């Protein structure tokens, strides 16, 4: 099939137009995958909730850190007094046992921490991975050897263990979400660096990059002008898989009590205290657990979709039989993946 021509649907008829730009083509291929599209909507909603957390809690009339001792039955060990764990017009999702803090507010602000840390950590991972990967790919034998060894060590490093350990030695005064972001980002950039290095080695041999090198361009200019466009697809593919992983790691660290610390709310941290209260206030456990599940699931499905959209041939190889038809449909941009 010709890559130069893609069909695009305009005003109900199929007309052949010259190949769309990379971004547009990517979007078309992503759009044809219903699961990925659904996941993208969920992710967008989560991001919206995270961004609008102050607004939403203002509408509810609550904030994530105020204690409400009046709503707590201290005689029964601190369970919420109202029915259903204190759900009502003032507290949309009920209140936390023992403290009486508003659960909706904590959940919404927890989304900020969860998504903010995960995305920022991914940016750090990409930055390190791309810079070191390009340096290894463009550098001479010794630079490559040294950087590749260092990368190997970081690939082998168990992220959870190293993060745990590093979080121990940083003074508590350091802002925790920033710290967790940096720790995750600085430890697990190795795989991106490997992908980027391998891709750089391939790109280096291509005519346009070779021409730039022969023209005496500096490494920085070559990297920025000639390499980065070719690196975007593999980096994006890998980064899309890193985001859900980072969400999980942040939640895990906070669950263990070394990540984001109170009073800043975080889903992982909410789960730490929740298991004792599952009978009196089940939503105290189920809400953060569900939020984590939905977030990681949506990000994973979206990540798979991004990979399929960026490399449809690799993805369709795995769909023997119906694969060819699906690929054709994905490329033509029609929305017919209803098998």
């Amino acid at each position, binding site marked *: 099939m010709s890559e130069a021509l893609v069909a695009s649907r305009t005003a109900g008829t199929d007309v052949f137009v010259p190949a769309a730009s990379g971004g547009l083509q990517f979007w078309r291929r992503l759009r044809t995958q219903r699961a990925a599209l659904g996941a993208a909507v969920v992710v967008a909603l989560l991001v919206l909730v995270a961004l609008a957390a102050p607004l939403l809690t203002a509408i509810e009339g609550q904030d994530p850190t105020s204690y409400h001792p009046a709503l707590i039955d201290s005689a029964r060990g601190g369970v919420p007094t109202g029915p259903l764990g204190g759900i009502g017009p003032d507290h949309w999702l009920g209140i936390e046992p023992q403290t009486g803090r508003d659960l909706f507010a904590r959940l919404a602000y927890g989304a900020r921490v969860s998504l903010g840390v995960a995305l920022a950590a991914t940016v750090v991972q990409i930055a390190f991975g791309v810079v070191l990967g390009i340096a290894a790919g463009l550098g001479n034998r010794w630079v490559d050897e040294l950087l590749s*060894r*260092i990368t*190997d*060590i970081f690939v*082998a*490093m*168990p*992220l*959870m*263990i*190293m993060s*745990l*350990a*590093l*979080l*121990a*030695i940083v*003074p508590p005064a350091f802002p925790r979400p920033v710290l967790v972001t940096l720790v995750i980002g600085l430890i697990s950039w190795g795989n991106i660096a490997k992908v980027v290095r391998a891709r750089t080695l391939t790109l280096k041999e291509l005519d346009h990059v070779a021409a730039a090198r022969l023209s005496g361009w500096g490494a920085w200019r070559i990297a920025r002008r000639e390499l980065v466009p070719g690196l975007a697809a593999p980096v994006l593919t890998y980064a899309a898989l890193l985001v*859900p992983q980072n969400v*999980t790691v942040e*939640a*895990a660290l906070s*669950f*263990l*009590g*070394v990540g984001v610390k109170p009073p800043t709310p975080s889903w*992982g941290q909410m*789960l730490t205290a*929740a*298991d004792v209260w*599952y009978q009196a206030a089940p939503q105290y*456990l189920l809400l953060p*657990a569900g939020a*984590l*599940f939905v977030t*990681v*699931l949506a990000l*994973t*499905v979206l990540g798979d979709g991004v990979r399929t959209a960026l490399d449809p041939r690799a993805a369709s*190889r*795995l*769909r*023997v*039989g*119906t694969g060819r038809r699906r690929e054709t449909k994905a490329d033509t941009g029609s929305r017919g993946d209803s098998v």
Partner: protein
Amino acid sequence: MTGFGGFLARRAIGTLLTLFALSVIVYVVFYATPGDVAQITCGPRCSPAQVHQVAAQLRLDDPLYVRYGHFLQGLLAGQDYSTGTSVEHCPAPCLGLSYQSDQQVTRLILAKLPVSLSLVFGAMVLWLVLGVGTGVLSAWRRGRLSERVLTALTLAGTATPVFVIGLILLIVVCGELRLLPFPQYVNLTDDPEQWAWNLLLPWVSLALIEAAAFARLTRSSMLETLAEDHIRTFRAYGVGERSVIGRHALRGAFAPVIALNANNFGSAVGGAVLTETLFGLPGVGQELVHAVNVVDLPVVVGMVLVIGFFVVLANAVADVLYAVADRRVVLS
């Protein structure tokens, strides 16, 4: 066999170099931090005299590389520590002293290691069986309803953090249904049956997450193999579908599964830390979390080194197994 022997030698040297580099990085990161290392190591309740003694034992006046050399010497040959009144000998893999718990770090870790090994290796059997089984089944039942259900379950498995699955299992199985008592670790040597029953839930929690990754990998590499020419030839010769799937396609998935099992070892250890904390298993992971919370620096460093050692070793073993399974690797 020079090819394979040379490959083994190269891998062994590479592994040793990686271990050395790991120890340097870990040592520098944790012992060259700004701040009073002696005070941190000794703990918040130490008197100035004790801090002074710790500083002398850590040789804080020496330059960093001398201190590292001293540390490495303890690791390889053992070391003597004077505790003011008496001299304590710390034998060969000496990871230093925990001043806060007043114990040798190596002994502390060795005491906790059986619990963690029981957890990880038991779960590993489970996740390999579950994961590869699910992967084979969903590659075999391609396009049918059972494949979709399996794929959906697998996806849900990858998306659920281990502590969420563990928490829910704990509440449902032990709390509501009362099928099992709340887990309490029993030594394998004391009572093997109780050991297994008490580890059942932790094994399942840890294995479900890891199995999902294996199911996805097994499925995709089997499908990739099934699309290859030699499989078409087998089918054309009339080889039965069961044999094509079970013998020939599965062989294609073998090497990637081995590689993933080793590469996931690190993440499985991370999962084990969470599982131990959740189920209250007194393993290395729980000790690490405790050491991190009270900032017991020698224990933290020792744990990181020991776990890093196992992870690097797992990667090396996997490379060799991979080469045995797929000889083309040796040539590259």
